[in-house]
């Protein structure tokens, strides 16, 4: 029994959450530093996981397995494949920046109430989310995964509803109501998804008799576990629905703009860059492995929905007046790409989708956090309230532009690699869909550049004339993200090498092979 590295990786932030929450009301700064410390320590552990992980080795590594709830056939089973490693790393990397970016977002407005400790709560909740997300990436037991998939809603819910954006267009009163509306919408959408999944989970247990991903997948593979076609499809739909809400896939997406719009920028990043990835990740790990037949059966519909998400999200992004809602719709478009890549059922598509999850996390973080800095300066989320920022705050504008260019997946930056892989992967199997999806890159350029032009260029608006440029803390947040974007854009090989084997295995689970090129000789 070696050192339970995975458990430690998840437990550390949990401990951090408790510790941070315990800090007395007066010692706000201490709580912040504590949170930052724990998130960095978690990052260290995550890196260790990535190092200890051997791409050539077994499918699931660093596995742990303990009895938990015998009566439900539930075991505490952890294990990571390449995909999980990549996403755990992403999570661990982003959280410190989120903490740092949210440094002042939760400072209490009225100090004096000794009991009310929003700051401690804010950072504790963030760490709690990190712990749950990491666990759901690590869980190889369906039930275990489900538990954290659901449980992470609660801290997220409080983060969205409790710590709304100080900068809002419509005054405090409506802001708080809008905020709680957004929080409730987020929770209910995901809860309904989760409960429907619960029915499927129970159904799975009735059919399979246990929840161990490996055992079930194994049994499916060697035919010892037969599912009636109808059953398999219903169960698949139950699982997929929950993941599609989380991802989110059109037409289940409407909670995201509200949530991202009302939440503070760091929390918005937490939603779209970290939490939502659990949905797409779960499609890849659970839908495809547990229900290969049904997955193939559903592929056409899902691809079309993904396609709609891509174009629809992009078009709505163009039509937004609110910076953060714009980014949210952009994310919807990107999630469309991810899902399309997953269900393209090609190694380019799925490797691309996985890289996409990572890159989208980083790029959205960069764009959204800078947007947050911008908004916190002017106190408004409306694009129309800005103009000419580039002249007064060039660094801010520059970083914002780079974040935007990443969002429109400019070659040389990380997202390009994944987006192109997804497109190619889809094209090889479904040329028509691939071609239509390509329009997405034009629309992406449109909404990004329109946003940049309206906010950053043109004559300087009097309101922004006195706007200070990025502070040291803020640069410390953005600069590393940009470095990552460039590095992964120029040299994505390390990540790709970790991800590829896992993707190959997933493909073999669904009995799919890449289509051969027409001219073999060229290779």
């Amino acid at each position: 029994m070696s050192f339970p590295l995975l458990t430690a990786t998840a437990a550390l932030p949990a401990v951090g959450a408790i510790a941070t929450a315990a800090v007395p009301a007066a010692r706000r700064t201490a709580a912040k530093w504590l949170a930052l410390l724990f998130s960095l320590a978690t990052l260290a552990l995550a890196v260790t996981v990535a190092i200890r992980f051997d791409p050539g080795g077994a499918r699931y590594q660093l596995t742990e397995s303990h009895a938990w709830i015998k009566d439900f056939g539930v075991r505490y089973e952890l294990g990571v494949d390449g995909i999980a490693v990549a996403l755990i790393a992403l999570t661990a990397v982003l959280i410190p920046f989120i903490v740092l970016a949210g440094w002042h977002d939760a400072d209490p407005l009225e100090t004096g109430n000794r009991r009310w400790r929003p700051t401690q709560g804010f950072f504790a909740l963030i760490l709690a989310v990190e712990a749950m997300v990491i666990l759901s990436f690590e869980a190889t037991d369906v039930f275990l995964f489900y538990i954290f998939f659901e449980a992470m809603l609660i801290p997220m819910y409080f983060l969205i509803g409790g710590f709304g954006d100080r900068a809002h267009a419509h005054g405090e009163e409506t802001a708080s109501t809008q905020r709680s509306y957004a929080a409730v919408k987020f929770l209910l959408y995901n809860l309904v998804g989760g409960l429907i999944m619960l029915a499927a989970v129970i159904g799975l247990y009735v059919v399979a008799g246990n929840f161990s991903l490996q055992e079930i997948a194994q049994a499916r593979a060697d035919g010892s576990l037969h599912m009636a076609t109808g059953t398999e499809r219903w169960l698949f739909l139950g699982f997929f629905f929950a993941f599609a809400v989380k991802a989110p896939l059109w037409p289940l997406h409407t909670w995201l703009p509200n949530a991202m719009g009302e939440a503070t920028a760091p929390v918005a990043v937490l939603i779209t860059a970290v939490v939502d990835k659990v949905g797409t990740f779960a499609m890849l790990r659970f839908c495809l492995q547990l229900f290969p037949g049904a997955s193939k059966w559903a592929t056409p519909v899902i691809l079309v929905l993904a396609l709609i998400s891509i174009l629809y999200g992009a078009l709505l992004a163009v039509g937004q007046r609110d910076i953060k809602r714009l980014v949210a719709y952009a994310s919807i478009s990107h999630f469309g790409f991810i899902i399309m890549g997953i269900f393209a059922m090609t190694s380019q598509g799925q490797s691309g989708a996985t890289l996409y999850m990572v890159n989208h996390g980083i790029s959205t973080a960069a764009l959204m956090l800078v947007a947050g800095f911008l908004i916190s300066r002017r106190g408004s989320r409306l694009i129309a309230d800005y103009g000419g920022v580039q002249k007064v705050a060039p660094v801010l504008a520059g970083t914002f532009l780079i974040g935007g260019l990443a969002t429109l997946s400019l070659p040389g930056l990380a997202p390009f690699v994944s987006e192109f892989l997804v497109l190619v992967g889809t094209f090889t199997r479904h040329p028509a869909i691939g071609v239509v999806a390509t329009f997405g890159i034009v629309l992406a350029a449109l909404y990004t550049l329109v946003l940049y032009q309206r906010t950053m260029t043109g004559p300087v608006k009097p309101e922004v004339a006195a706007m200070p440029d990025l502070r040291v803390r803020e640069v410390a947040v953005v600069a590393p993200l940009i470095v990552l974007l460039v590095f992964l854009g120029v040299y994505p090989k390390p990540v790709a090498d970790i991800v590829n084997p896992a993707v190959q295995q997933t493909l073999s689970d669904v009995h799919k092979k890449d289509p051969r090129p027409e001219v073999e000789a060229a290779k």
Partner: protein
Amino acid sequence: MSATAVHSLWTTAADPISKIDAPKIEYGQLSPTLIVIGAALVGVLIEAFVPRRFRYYTQVFVSFVALAAAFAAVVALAADGYGTTRARIAAMGAIAVDGPALFLQGTILLGALAALFTFAERRLDPAAHGNRVDSFAAQAASVPGSDSEKAAVRAGFTTTEVFPLLLFAVGGMLVFPSANDLLTLFVALEVFSLPLYLLCALARRKRLMSQEAAVKYFLLGAFASAFTLFGIALLYGYAGSVSYGTIAQVVDGTVTDIDPALANTMGNDALLLIGAAMLVMGLLFKVAAVPFHMWTPDVYQGAPTPVTGFMAAATKVAAFGALLRVLYVVLPGMRWDWRPVMWAVAIVTMLGGAIVAITQTDIKRLLAYSSIAHAGFILAGVIATTPSGVSSVLFYLAAYSFVTIGAFAVVTLVRDAGGEATHLSKWAGLGRRSPLVAAVFAVFLLAFAGIPLTSGFAGKFAVFKAAAEGGAVPLVVIGVISSAVAAFFYIRVIVLMFFSEPRPEGPTVAVPSPLTMAAIGIGVAVTLVLGVAPQYFLDLASQAGVFVR
């Protein structure tokens, strides 16, 4: 029947007394019930002889000791294997001593202990004329607002009768799920119902509502028990006996020693079906299943909150225990007749409870409807008619009862000038004013909503799993949908507490004595333990999942 036969009947009855051998009572195995009933009687004597100023303390002490001792006895019995291998039918076939009985008795007793703490709480209300007061009327007999009431308050009277009443109710509840013949069932039903009727009427504040609640509860309860009794009569007519075992045999048509006198008169299926239906209806009334639920919101709202908590938890446990035994021991033979009907009841109960709860504005009524919805979920498990079904229901009941008591205990803390501030609008911003209480209540709400890592989720999963295995997949789907609906209003309360601006004239949160704290503490602890590490208790429940016949 001929006159001679009738005459013989007379003569046999007139035989010398010596022929009747004294009934054999296993006092040891009945000890939990006997302890509680005995303590109740002691309580009555205390009311009679102990000076008023000592009564409160003596009553609390006696009740506590009794309940604790009874629980200890239950544990001891279970340890002796009466729950499993040595399960038997005691007291001349009147009482079953088996797994479900002991498990439920244990649950009821623990719940009663927690409830006792809330009963005994005397710090919440501001002291009247220097006398600390609890949640019960100073003098139930005096008319609200009358001089006599004022006098009673001034004199610092308190209705310490509530403790013996509580004990009587508990005694009845202990017998109810373990009753092994219909007569015992009926008597137990009345024994725990009547004290509850009274307790409902004893609120210190809002006495009009309290009395109204009592009247409604009493009339409807009596109405229901009349149906039960008629059902019992018909079953007796069907089987010629009220003993569970015999009826079951007749239903299965496997009667061993058949009395020739009975042979031609019994086995009329019409009697069986109608009787079973009416009996079950009586039980469904107690578990508050739609359409027999309508008393629930009014009574829950009107009754003193500690009583509400006790009722909501213990009554449900006892009633479901009895229902299980009736369905699994008496009527398994006619499973195919009652299952579809119960399906329908479960569905309307789940949906009805959840949907109506959405528009509630009073926290106690909200919890009432939520308890209805939960009754529906539990019914889903009952319908499974598998051992796992039984154990899942047992587990759910245990989990649910502690959440409920805890939740109502929290309700008692949120007060304003008019006593408890139960209107939801007053709970706005509670999270700002006292985060801890709000957080605790949030935990209970999340457990009600069945969020993972709370006991509510484990219970819901167990029940739905059992139902699915029992082939009731549609039931599971509907259950899932209605719990989604239910989630909505639990969330609404959380939103209210944490995300709405606190009102200037909002309620204050009273700092309770260790008693209420203990009750809430137990609630939270059980909720989390059963949520995170339920295995041990699931084992317990599954071991206890077998009825003795």
